[in-house]
Each structure stands twice: as structure tokens, then as C-alpha cells.
């Protein structure tokens, strides 16, 4: 039958397309009629839906993967979710929507690879899984025999690292988890939370009840550019219900665009501002007396410590108008106790003083009575999953000189500070480290001073990674094992235990792994076998999931009958009396002064230690996120790359005018150690202080195997060479670097438009001779290590 004839027939037979409930105009009829077989619904309609959990970032939004013809065609939020699924919607962010393009990215690593060139060169041959596993096991065994178990270190991030972590623990290394996610990110805020409140109010999870807040304070947090869906939903919800917003940030962020007050603070002086606010609140009686007397300890010590912190003093140090500082604190205080002082997330800023800054934020919240309060910080609701019998967790015996030993408040957290591992690898002190395993962390685009990291890698006997993409990390590895994308595997059970409602859900495969990619559980199990370690008592991941779900009277099957997600009430969110802290004590107790800090020769109350200001001619390099990318992981994703292929260097408009820089012009950034970026376009804007240059993080990939992301934009990470370690828990600082502009090969010194008060020291840049030496070193390095080929 000809197409035209068929159309005539079908038109006459009043086409209803039974079963599809399709009764539309000719527009569709025509399109369907030509297929002649039961027509497929357009778009993602009619797809098979598999509930799971997103991993385009680490917020773990419940999703459904929509599968047609054996392929994932679209991802939507799980409509059953009380967070991203509420109100008849099914939200996922741009990245969540782009999971499809991670899964089917032609640049993916789909076979085990073995290095044949130099480390960093990216020349590999395909090998079999057998060979790859044998190589990894043999090398780990060799290192353990020769140098002891602690000579092995594991860098991990995300759910896929969990099973492998157990293998490293069973190998006996104390360096089994050196999470960049902790030591480069949430470490200081978590340490402040645990010691002040007794629980992690803000870290990987954030118990910030912004939806019910009447006022919100963000210090450096740029919600909206930093997109964690339910977190942004709560933020927007709070604002739309009339919450006032104060944003403290040297850059006019998206959040600042929504703020009632934007305070463009001099970087490194946040604690001065907070101390002046605490003093103001105490002096003017703007605190919640009942809450403080009932739940807080150390008020007198605090009062004494903040005395003298006038608004005038803060205004001068922070380079802010005093009346605006006052207006801000009045606005926040007026909303108490329903005021959300956001404790922050990425907090490894200046090394020194980071814990104090977050301690000050928590104190301010406590003074407002905003802990365990609607609109303030809430508590997690305990949800008990079943005990896992199928995985035997090893007890790790610490070394005589543990790498975390220097840091008295590192103890409740697993693993060792990242830079202690790197330094031990470089120096062999206090003991040698000779093998690295990496999973889910692209170290060179994450850890300050990637040049030092490369130096350390050169000293290793063995390094392997478990990766989805041929990242910079992979380039430096001896063996690369192909990881599965989250849409291809099971993972742990996920519990969301905050407001408005809690839930339990699981990650599960929507499709079979592509190529020879294998799940983290499979890899861990196979590796454990070869290492002769009894870690896993089962061959089945589902068995582990079922053991966990059993604690809630569920199984994977039951959960899937419920749409992959079961909602539970957030009954403990505001329950101060029954709250149990991480030390097992009942009842909320807030420490306004921390004796444990004093015992370790720290100040019990926050003190202000100014971060050194930019050297003359330089601006401070600040960085942040863009909403469509996760760290350096998504820059190669076709859809996300289209939205945002490269970053821009934000430069203050007055500075740009003085230097003759135009919007869109291409420049290179050079840091205080003479390290230069790839070319990057200038964004001239009044929305940044004159003493800062801003880059969004994760761009400027140095892996030529990432066909889209390679050399696009400037990497902030490769300009972050100077770091200071936090004395509490060993996190390494990221905001301690300074840049100037190179245009057409000529170095431009930045004018200083905001004079520096004498109390703030300047960073001392190494002499010109040293800088030249650095350039020579760079040139030399470029020859032997193509990754540096900038």
C-alpha cells in the first residue's frame, strides 16, 4: 500500500489508535499513520520507567530513567519523592537531565587499559579484565609486603567508592579514605558542627530549613549556581514566602541578585564580620534568651571574647559600609528564631581560621534560637537500616605515626588528610607511601597544587584508577579500570532524613553496562578474591540491598512495587528534647565556647586571623560553581557542554577600564608562582570586587582524551598552587592564591582600588628571580609531561 492510500483508508476508518488514547488533530495522525505498525509515542512518552538515584552530582535526587528500545532516552525526577517530586512535578537539574549523554559519551573508558608511555602521557593498550585485576592485586601485594599496609592509599568520592574502600580497609591501610570531598570541601564546617552542636548540621547533607525561614544568611554560598535540587527548592520557596536574604560574597552571585542586601566583603575577613555581629546581638539583647539559657553553654566566655568587635572595626577590615552591616544584622535578628544562618558547605578556604568562621556562623544561629527550629537548622530523623552481614568490615590498626596525628579534630572522620598522603608520598616521611588507588576523584583538578600531586605520582611504584572518563587522573595511572555509569549499576540504599519528609530509595540499573564496564561491587569482589581477603560473603549486590532494607521491613521488590521510593515522616526535625548527638548523648547542647578546642591549645571561641591580602599588582583568585556542571566531571557531556563550554574570568569593570580590557577579550592568568592558565575570555562586570578575579571551577581540562572539554577555559585548580592546611583537621585551602593578567604576552599589574588596612598583612610573592626559575621549571616540565602542555 502506498503511503497516500494508507492515509486515505485510515482517515476513513476514523483512526482512534486504541490503547494510546490518542484522539488528536491531523498533526499527529499523519505522523503515526506512516509507520503502519503500532505507532511509537513521541518524545519520551510510553517509555519504560526505572526508579533510581541520580549521580550527576552527589546530592542523590530520586529519578526515573526512561528506557525505549533498550536505551535510556530521558531522565526525570521520581514523582514519588517528597523533595524533587512534590507538587506533581518531577524535577532534575540540567545535569540530571544530561545523564543520558554521560552514559552514551563516545569518550567513555569502556575497557581495562594499561599505560605504555610515561605517566601523564596518556598512551595505553587495551588489556583483559583478568590481566588488569592481576596487575592491580600483584602490585598492591608487593607494596604491602615491602613497605607495610599503610604504604597503600585510597582516594575516593561518591557511592561507587564504597565497596572498594572495604577492600583497602581489609588490606590494613589507615589511609583507606582520603576523600577530596572532605579534605578539600566540607571538612572545616563538619568539624565546627560536631564540636558546637554535636551533629553535622551541614556537610554532605544540609539540615537547613530555608523553606520555613523568615530570613536567610549566606556567607559565600552561591545557591542557584551551586545546584542541589531540593536545597535550591527550599531556598526559592523560602524567598517566595517572603524571607529576607542577606548575601555576603565578594562576587554578585545569582543569590546576591535575589538578596535584600549584598555585602561585597573583602575576602578573608568573614570572621571579623561575624564576630561584630555576635557582639552586636549580645550587646543589644537581640538574642533568644530562653533558648540560650536552656540549651547553650559558654555565653560568658563568648561575651568576653567578642568584646571590642564593634561594627566600625568590622566595617574597616571587611571594606563594607557600616550602616549596611548594621542593617543586615537587624534584619536577621528581627526574624529570630526563624532565621537560617546557612552553615556553608565548601569551607576549605584559607586553611587557618576556617573552623572558626563556621563556628561563628553556628553561634550566631544559636543566639537566634534557630537550632531545632522551623526556618532554622533542623535535625536528622533517625532511620535504621538493617545490618549488613554479607560484607565483613575490617578493623584498621593505626600506624605508629598516623598521618592524621597532627590534627586533633580529624579523628571522627575516616582516612587521612589528602595533603598528608601527598607529602608522605613525596618525602617518605613519616613512612613511605608507594601505591595509590583512586575512585571517583579527579585528583589533579581537585587538590591544591596539582604540580605537587604530579611530582608525588612520579614517586609511586603503582597507581590505578577506576574511572568513567579518561580524566587527567587516568592519564597518570598505570592501570585504568572502566567504571559503570550510575544508570548501569546498583549502589547502596539511600536515605534522606530531613525536611519536609524523609524517604528511602535505591540506585538500580536501567540498562546493562556498556563495553566492559563493571560495577564497583564486582570490581571490589574480584580484587578481594585475588588479594586473598574475605570481605564479601555474597556474589549478589541485591542481597546486600535487601539486608539493608530489611531494617525497614522492606525488600528491593517491595520498594519497587512502591515506585522505588518509600516516604517516612521527618518526625525528629525540630525535636530538641529527644535529639541524640553523635556522641550518643540525649538532648540538645550547644557549645558557644568549646573546651575541647582549648584543651588542644586552640581558642575555645572564634577568633579572627586575617588571610593575607593580594600582593601588589595581583588579585585574589576566587572560584565557584556553575549550575550545569559538577566539579570537572561533566564538562565533556555533549548537552552540558553546549550550555556552558568554557568559563570566563570575571573582572571588575573599573579595573578593566584602567587596564584597557574589554568584555569577551582573551587573556591568560598567571599566579604568584608563575603558573599560567589556558586562554580565557574576560567578563567585565560591576558584580565583583576590584581585588578579586573569579573563575568557575572545573574547566580547562588538560586531558586530550576528553574531546570536548580539552583546553576549554581556564582551570582554577592549576592556578591554586599555594595552600595552607587547617590546623584542626588538615583540610587544604583553596582561596590562598593570587593572579594577574597576561594579555598579548604582556603582564598587566592590577591597580589597587580598595586600600588595605594595616592590620591585614600582604602575601609575599617570591622574588622575580624565583619566578623566572619557576618559568624555567615549567618549560622543562612541559617537555617531559605533556599534561602540562599549556
Amino acid at each position, binding site marked *: 500500500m502506498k503511503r497516500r492510500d494508507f492515509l486515505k483508508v485510515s482517515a476513513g476508518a476514523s483512526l482512534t489508535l486504541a490503547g494510546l*488514547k*490518542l*484522539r*488528536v*488533530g*491531523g*498533526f*499527529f495522525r*499523519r*505522523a503515526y499513520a*506512516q509507520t503502519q505498525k503500532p505507532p511509537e*509515542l*513521541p*518524545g*519520551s*512518552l510510553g517509555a519504560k520507567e526505572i526508579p533510581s538515584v541520580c549521580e550527576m552530582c552527589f546530592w542523590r535526587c530520586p529519578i526515573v530513567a526512561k528506557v525505549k528500545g533498550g536505551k535510556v*532516552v*530521558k*531522565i*526525570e525526577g521520581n514523582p514519588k519523592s517528597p523533595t*524533587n517530586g512534590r507538587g*506533581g*512535578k518531577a*524535577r*532534575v*537539574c*540540567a545535569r*540530571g*537531565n*544530561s545523564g*543520558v549523554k554521560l552514559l552514551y559519551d563516545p569518550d567513555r573508558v569502556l575497557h581495562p587499559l594499561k599505560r605504555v608511555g610515561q605517566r601523564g602521557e596518556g598512551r595505553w593498550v587495551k588489556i583483559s579484565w583478568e590481566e588488569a585485576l592481576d596487575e592491580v592485586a600483584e602490585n598492591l601485594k608487593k607494596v604491602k609486603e615491602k613497605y607495610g599496609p599503610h604504604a597503600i592509599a585510597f582516594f575516593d568520592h561518591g557511592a561507587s567508592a564504597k565497596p572498594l574502600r572495604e577492600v583497602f580497609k581489609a588490606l590494613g591501610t589507615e589511609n583507606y579514605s582520603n576523600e577530596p570531598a572532605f579534605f578539600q570541601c566540607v571538612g572545616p564546617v563538619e568539624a565546627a558542627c560536631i564540636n558546637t552542636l554535636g551533629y553535622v548540621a551541614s556537610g554532605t547533607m544540609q539540615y537547613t530549613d530555608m523553606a520555613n525561614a523568615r530570613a536567610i544568611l549566606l556567607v559565600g554560598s552561591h545557591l*542557584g*549556581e551551586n*545546584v542541589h*535540587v531540593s536545597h*535550591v*527548592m527550599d531556598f*526559592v520557596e523560602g*524567598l*517566595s514566602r517572603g524571607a529576607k536574604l542577606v548575601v555576603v560574597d565578594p562576587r*554578585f*552571585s*545569582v543569590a*546576591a*541578585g535575589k538578596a535584600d542586601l549584598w555585602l561585597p566583603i573583602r575576602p578573608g575577613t568573614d570572621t571579623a564580620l561575624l564576630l561584630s555581629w555576635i557582639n552586636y546581638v549580645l550587646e543589644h539583647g537581640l538574642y533568644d534568651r530562653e533558648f540560650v539559657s536552656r540549651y547553650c553553654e559558654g555565653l560568658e566566655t563568648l561575651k568576653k571574647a567578642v568584646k571590642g568587635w564593634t561594627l566600625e572595626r568590622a566595617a574597616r577590615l571587611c571594606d563594607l559600609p557600616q550602616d549596611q552591616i548594621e542593617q543586615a544584622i537587624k534584619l536577621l535578628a528581627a526574624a529570630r528564631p526563624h532565621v537560617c544562618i546557612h552553615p556553608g558547605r565548601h569551607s576549605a578556604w584559607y586553611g587557618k581560621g576556617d573552623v572558626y568562621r563556621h563556628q561563628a556562623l553556628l553561634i550566631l544561629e544559636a543566639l537566634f534560637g534557630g537550632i531545632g527550629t522551623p526556618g532554622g537548622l533542623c535535625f536528622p530523623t533517625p532511620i535504621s537500616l538493617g545490618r549488613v552481614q554479607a560484607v565483613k568490615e575490617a578493623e584498621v590498626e593505626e600506624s605508629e605515626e598516623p598521618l592524621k596525628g597532627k590534627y586533633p579534630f580529624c579523628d571522627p572522620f575516616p582516612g587521612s588528610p589528602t595533603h598528608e598522603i601527598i607529602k608522605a608520598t613525596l618525602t617518605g616521611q613519616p613512612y613511605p607511601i608507594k601505591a595509590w588507588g583512586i575512585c571517583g576523584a579527579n585528583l589533579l583538578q581537585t587538590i591544591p597544587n596539582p604540580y605537587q600531586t604530579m611530582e608525588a605520582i612520579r614517586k609511586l611504584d603503582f597507581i590505578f584508577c577506576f574511572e568513567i572518563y579518561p580524566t587527567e587522573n587516568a592519564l597518570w595511572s598505570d592501570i585504568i579500570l572502566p567504571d559503570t555509569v550510575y544508570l548501569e549499576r546498583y549502589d547502596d540504599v539511600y536515605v534522606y532524613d530531613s525536611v519536609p519528609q524523609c524517604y528511602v530509595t535505591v540506585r538500580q540499573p536501567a540498562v546493562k553496562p556498556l563495553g566492559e564496564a563493571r560495577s564497583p561491587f564486582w570490581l571490589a569482589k574480584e580484587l578481594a578474591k585475588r588479594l586473598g581477603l574475605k570481605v564479601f560473603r555474597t556474589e549478589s549486590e541485591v542481597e546486600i540491598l535487601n539486608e539493608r532494607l530489611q531494617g525497614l521491613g522492606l525488600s528491593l521488590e517491595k520498594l519497587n512495587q512502591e515506585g522505588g521510593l518509600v516516604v517516612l515522616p521527618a518526625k525528629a526535625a525540630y525535636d530538641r528534647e529527644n535529639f541524640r548527638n553523635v556522641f550518643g548523648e540525649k538532648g540538645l547542647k550547644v557549645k558557644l565556647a568549646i573546651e575541647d578546642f582549648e584543651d588542644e591549645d586552640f581558642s575555645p571561641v572564634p577568633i579572627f586571623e586575617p588571610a593575607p591580602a593580594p600582593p601588589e599588582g595581583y588579585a585574589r583568585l576566587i572560584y565557584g560553581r556553575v*549550575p*550545569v556542571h559538577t566539579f570537572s566531571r561533566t564538562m565533556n557531556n*555533549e*548537552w*552540558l*557542554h*553546549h*550550555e*556552558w*563550554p*568554557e568559563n*570566563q574570568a570575571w573582572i571588575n569593570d573599573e579595573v578593566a577600564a584602567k587596564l584597557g580590557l574589554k568584555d569577551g577579550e582573551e587573556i591568560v592568568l598567571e599566579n604568584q608562582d608563575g603558573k599560567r592558565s589556558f586562554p580565557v575570555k574576560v567578563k567585565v*562586570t*560591576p*558584580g565583583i570586587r576590584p581585588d578579586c578575579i573569579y573563575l568557575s571551577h572545573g574547566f580547562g581540562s588538560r586531558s586530550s582524551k576528553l574531546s570536548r572539554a580539552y583546553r576549554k577555559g581556564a582551570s582554577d585548580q592549576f592556578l591554586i598552587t599555594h595552600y595552607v592546611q587547617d590546623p584542626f583537621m588538615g583540610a587544604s585551602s583553596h582561596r590562598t592564591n593570587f593572579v594577574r593578567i597576561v594579555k598579548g604576552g604582556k603582564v598587566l599589574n592590577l591597580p589597587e582600588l580598595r586600600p588595605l588596612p594595616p592590620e591585614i598583612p600582604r602575601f609575599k610573592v617570591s622574588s622575580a628571580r624565583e619566578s623566572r626559575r619557576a618559568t624555567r621549571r615549567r618549560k622543562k616540565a612541559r617537555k617531559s609531561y605533556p599534561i602540562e602542555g599549556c
Partner: protein
Amino acid sequence: MRHQWAMVIDLDRCVGCHACAVACRAEWQVPVNHDHDGYAFIQDYEEWLKVVDPEGGGDYRRNWVLRLGPERTSQGELAFTFYPGLCNHCDDPVCVKVCPVDPEEREFVDFKTGKKVTLKVKATYKEPFYGAVLIDQERCIGCGNCVAACPYRARYINDTLEEPKADKCTFCYERLVHGEIPACVKTCIADARIFGDLADPQSEVSQLVRSGRARRLESDLVKIGPNVYFMGKEKNLELLFKHFAPRKRTWEEVEVKARTRRGILKVVLRKLA
């Protein structure tokens, strides 16, 4: 009042996350033209006019987010906002006027009521029940007239197909038929997109439009009745209108009768086939 689907975009809620743009691409398998990577940084209407090419090879998208600012407004305030755009399904769709395909009689069925109506329509038309501007892919000859005519640049030529065709936002007509909501609305993490029928006085869109809070993105020069409205702080609307209110009567430059050479060639080829 006639039914008319409409959307209000609340810039106070929008955080510029681009979920809408990507969800639409995923839902409708809109291809990517990497020559236009980074389109989101375009700040200027004149530049925006060049982003699609009636001859093909322009950017492919039904839905987009442009980032505006931070910059100072006329009042000296700093603003940082977005232009989340899509087809406006205009009251007076100039893109339909320039379609050179001969009108043909077509029966339309209201998917809600089953009511039928017969109309003579070209390859692109304003659908009679809900006012969505749609394209009949079967009859489109890919001439690019409509693409050139749209002052919002809401259409593009999909030249990755064997036969290039015009394509655009349908307000997710197909999804609505199946009881779904538009993909961009469903994914919007900030609930900044409000979709509904202007004829329904109870609908949020009609209330917002009546209140005067939601505004049409138009200028004195270009007033063709867009049915996507924007609301938000004055400073944000100022930025949006300053940069992207249409200010060129693009359709007047498109000659309706003279089909492009490529269009004619395509029609001939199809007849031969």
C-alpha cells in the same frame, strides 16, 4: 474567551539552572550544533538574531536560557537575571504568514472534548483549540521562511534530518494530549514556569496576566501577541527587556511568495520520489 495556552516565567524564582533547556532537548531529541556552544553568553539582540540560520547550520534548540548581568540598571542597582525562552505561540504568528506551502484542508480534534473542526492550513499553523503554533513535519519543505521571520528566534532548521525541516517548541502539545505537563515545566527546579490556559479565569497564568504583574516581551516595533510572559523584580525585567525585547520586524524581510531555491528543489525531489 478563546482557549489559549500560555506560560508565565517568574524571574524572581528562576535561578538560571538550564534544566528547562536540557529537558526539552532530551524529550524531543533536539540535536546539538557545537558551532553554537556557549550560546547562553549572548547578551545582545542583534547577536541573537544571528544564532539561527534559515538556510540551516544555526543553533538547534526549542528552549534556551541566556544569562544577563551582573550589570547596573538605569537606577544604579546591580541585577543578575536570565532569559529563559521558548516559542511564544503568538496571537499573530508572523511565522505562519510566511509559510509558502499551499493550504490544505485538515480536520482538527479537541483532545479534551472530542470536538471537531475543519480548517485550511499551511505546513505551519496556529492550532484552533489551544492556540499552540505547530508545524506539520510531513508537509514542511524546510524553506526556512518561518525561521527567518520569527523575531524571537524560536524556530530553527533541523538539517540533521534527511530532509531538513523547521522545528520549534510545541508547548509539549503531545505530552499534554497524554495528560503530561510540558517537559520544561516538569523539570523546573525553582517552579519558575507556570503553564495554563488564559481562558480559564481560575488558572494561575490568567490571574497573573490580569494582575499586570506578568509582561509580554515585546517592543513598540514588534507587537505580535506573545503568550509567554515574564514577571519579577523591576530591575530584572529591565535587563531582560533592554537586551532581548525584539526590535526588528524580521518577518517583513521574508518574501512569502518566492520560495527559496532550496525549497523548490526539495519539493521537486519529493514529487520525483
